[in-house]
């Protein structure tokens, strides 16, 4: 177990392109932090830099008390789970699990005991003699996790480990992973492009864009108080509605310098208190999710999505008015994109 610290970590490619810019971040001992961002934002590169698979250009990476910038991966006390599991195809589950210990010259009997204990914990005991090609996606995933666990690393690095699984399995593995983190108590860095996964797993979430950190906060903090327009639009599904001037001209709000956003679940079909705002548009689409509907209204080419309780009276093509409280609006500076704190 160890604390992970990144100080002004920067990585430039040979052509001068900066793929990581001044990354400052500390992951506490035993914390599970998730890193999320659109593809190409540098999150996987950052993870590979922490692992030692890629070199950084400047800055410092510390694991525990040690500066690891110049250490090879095997001396960094990290384990990594890869997106496609990266199991050794020519080795059985047992051999896959044991490889890291064998390499470290752990005695055969100790290897055997540890492999079997970990396999039992992950429900792999019956599969030890199988080859990766004979396993299901979830079993491969567990094997990859087991291999990482056997290293007993200070820091556990997970690179989109669930993205190759189908959706129901993904939810199950996500719960298992969370439980595993609780029982192991190891520091974990979890990289994903799926913001809902990032929020549900991470004790804190790092949002990355274009090689730089946009915000670090708890999942609730990220969702409730995004620091800027990018984070607000990236986190949450369906994404936050950004209201163009057309929607708001009866409200008297300043739309010159400020852009307003509202979360889909904050829009309602009926007015609440006096003084609520409303917007009106043509009902374009109704999508039912059983207990909840997502409705989309449009006005002069701009669209707004709302999450509302099922309402049989809604008619496609008709005008629909949606209500919201003034304090549910988010306000962003049009020039800088940063959120105007005073608003809420």
């Amino acid at each position, binding site marked *: 177990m160890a604390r992970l610290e990144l100080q002004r970590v920067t990585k430039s490619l040979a052509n001068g392109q900066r793929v990581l810019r001044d990354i400052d971040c500390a992951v506490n001992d035993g914390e599970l932090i998730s890193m999320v961002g659109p593809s190409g934002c540098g999150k996987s590169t950052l993870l590979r830099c922490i*692992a030692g698979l890629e070199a950084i250009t400047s800055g410092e990476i510390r694991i525990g008390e040690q500066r690891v910038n110049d250490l090879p991966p*095997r001396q960094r006390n990290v384990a*990594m789970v890869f997106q*496609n599991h990266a199991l050794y*195809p*020519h080795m059985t589950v047992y051999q896959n699990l044991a490889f890291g210990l064998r390499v470290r010259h752990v005695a055969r009997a100790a290897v055997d005991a540890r492999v079997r204990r970990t396999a039992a914990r992950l429900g792999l005991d019956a599969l030890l003699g199988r080859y990766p*090609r004979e396993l299901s996606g979830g079993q491969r995933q567990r094997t990859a996790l087991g291999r990482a666990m056997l290293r007993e690393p200070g820091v556990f690095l997970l690179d989109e480990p669930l993205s190759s699984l189908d959706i129901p399995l993904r939810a199950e593995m996500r719960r298992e992973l969370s439980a595993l983190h609780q029982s192991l108590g190891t520091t974990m860095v979890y990289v994903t492009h799926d913001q809902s996964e990032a929020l549900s797993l991470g004790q804190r979430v790092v949002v990355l864009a274009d090689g730089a950190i946009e915000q670090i906060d708890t999942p609730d903090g990220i969702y409730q108080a995004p620091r800027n327009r990018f984070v607000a639009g990236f986190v949450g599904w369906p994404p936050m509605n950004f209201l163009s001037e057309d929607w708001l001209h009866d409200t008297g709000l300043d739309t010159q310098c400020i852009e307003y956003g509202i979360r889909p679940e904050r829009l309602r079909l009926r007015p609440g208190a006096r003084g609520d705002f409303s917007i009106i548009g043509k009902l374009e689409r109704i999508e039912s999710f059983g207990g909840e509907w997502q409705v989309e209204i449009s006005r002069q080419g701009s669209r707004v999505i709302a999450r509302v309780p099922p309402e049989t009276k809604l008619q496609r093509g008709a005008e629909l008015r949606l209500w919201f409280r003034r304090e549910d609006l988010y306000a962003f500076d049009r020039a800088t994109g940063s959120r105007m704190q005073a608003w809420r």
Partner: protein
Amino acid sequence: MSGRGMVLRASRYAVLIVMALATLFPLLWVTSIAFMRSPERFAGTPPLWPDHPTLVNMVNIVHQQRIGHYFLNSLIVAAATTPLSVLVAGLAGYALAQAKFRGHRLVSWVVMFAVLVPNQALVLPLFEMFSAVHLVNHYAALVLPAAANAVSIVLIQAYARAIPKDILDAARIDGASEWRTFFSVVVPLMAPMLAAVAVLTFVVSWNDFMWPMIAMQKVDMQTLPVALASIDREHYQNIGLMAAGATVAILPMMLVFLASQRYYLRAVSAGSVTD
């Protein structure tokens, strides 16, 4: 199966059978001639089948011609060349495919270019070099030049490109050194291609003629192909004896191929590695 499918299948097999016969025919004929008593009396073209099969050519090739001795020379050279060449090509091909190092492109191009250089063009400089270090008439004169083979390197490089990078990274994180990664992970993944390269190397070494003829000037050091060719010169044309020598010479290659056929075919037909 439909009638059309049957016809298609039958004609496909017919073509394959004709091709197989065309390939096998000379081999079978040579083997058959090896068991004929003085086939040269048939004014040029020996018959397909011996009228009175005999082992006299076989006995002569072993006793008079000391074929066992040359056979052993060839075997020593091929057995030393094959593992060495596979190791060198395996390391070089893997490094060129997966490692990042300065001048990587240049080296790749040089290797590619080396494929185009005919062996005959190398004979003179090689001879100069081996004379200078007094290795002419040494097994090393045949083994060392064959140890680094550009064709093998290019074949393995192409194959090694398909090894997923994540698997290599996983090994590094698991704590394996580069050597350990190579032998424990890379070699098993490249096994089919390494086997194919081994077979090719063995066959090329076994059949090589020009360089062994020049580098091995002592009769005692000659390899089988060179010794067989001199049967022709020393005596009047003894076709039966030559056929017997050729038959004996084919045997080890058949064994090598049969033993590695499974891997060999996998590498030649697949061209891809793992999932």
